[in-house]
């Protein structure tokens, strides 16, 4: 069953399974079931259902890029654009492989915030100059290069139980 805002109705067991998967998505159905006091087949069924409902979108590995030895600099790019064009600009940015995340946002004016990855500062500049600045509607761009990462994580079910509408 779907709720008004497109959310799927989940019960406490579903939430506990999601919490377990967010902690370690390689944990077996049996181990999760044992921890929650339910059969492994129940865990399997519920996970399958949440996959079909796109509650669970993907299982992925979090890689330390530095250890892999890939040259990489990350930056936060703020794109100011004509309000009539901002959706189109954001969609175009989202389609580019250099853009890791893209959001529209509003402060004093409507803008796009995107996380961009490139091999070097020069490559970053070339990308922004050749692929972002020329997009119709872009009025100016501010870019901050990330020098050190202190935290990077996903929204965690475990830390947000009071915000859930079960």
């Amino acid at each position, binding site marked *: 069953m779907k709720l008004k805002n497109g959310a799927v109705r989940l019960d406490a067991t579903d939430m506990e399974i999601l919490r377990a998967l967010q902690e370690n998505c390689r944990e077996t159905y049996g181990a999760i079931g044992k921890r929650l006091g339910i059969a492994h087949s129940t865990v399997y069924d519920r996970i399958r259902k949440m996959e079909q409902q796109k509650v669970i979108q993907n299982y992925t590995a979090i890689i330390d890029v530095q250890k892999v030895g890939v040259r990489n600099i990350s*930056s936060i*790019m703020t794109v*100011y654009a004509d309000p009539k064009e901002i959706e189109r600009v954001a969609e175009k940015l989202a389609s580019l492989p250099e853009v890791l995340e893209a959001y529209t946002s509003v402060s004093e004016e409507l803008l796009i915030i995107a996380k961009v990855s490139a091999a070097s*500062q020069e490559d*970053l*500049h070339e990308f*922004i*100059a*050749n692929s*972002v*600045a*020329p997009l*119709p509607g*872009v*009025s*100016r*761009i*501010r*870019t901050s*290069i990330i020098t050190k990462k202190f935290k990077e994580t996903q929204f965690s079910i475990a830390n947000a139980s009071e915000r859930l509408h079960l």
Partner: protein
Amino acid sequence: MNSDTASKSLRTVPREKAFYFFTSIGNYTGASASSLKEFMEKINEVNVKSLEFHLYRGDFEKWMAEVLQDTELASDIKKLQKLSLTGNGLRDQLSFTVSRRYKRLTSQPATSRF
């Protein structure tokens, strides 16, 4: 100078080939130029930091040579790097260099240019 050189240098290029003025890596001012005439106007308007940024990276000469295919102007602009100019001194010298070239290109009879 032949008419082909002049017509290439004076043409308006598509927006993906335009020159976009930045003040530093990834910081776009919002100003761009799609022709030599527009470039000449914009260098008198943009933040002088942008002129310093692009001149010493070689971006102006690259655009002149590769997009407008004006190697003579590219060479003149490259020479400005050796003067180590900054601020409005740089703006004035760059403006003078580009304007002089523009006047030479546009002073040719229209029939030989197009």
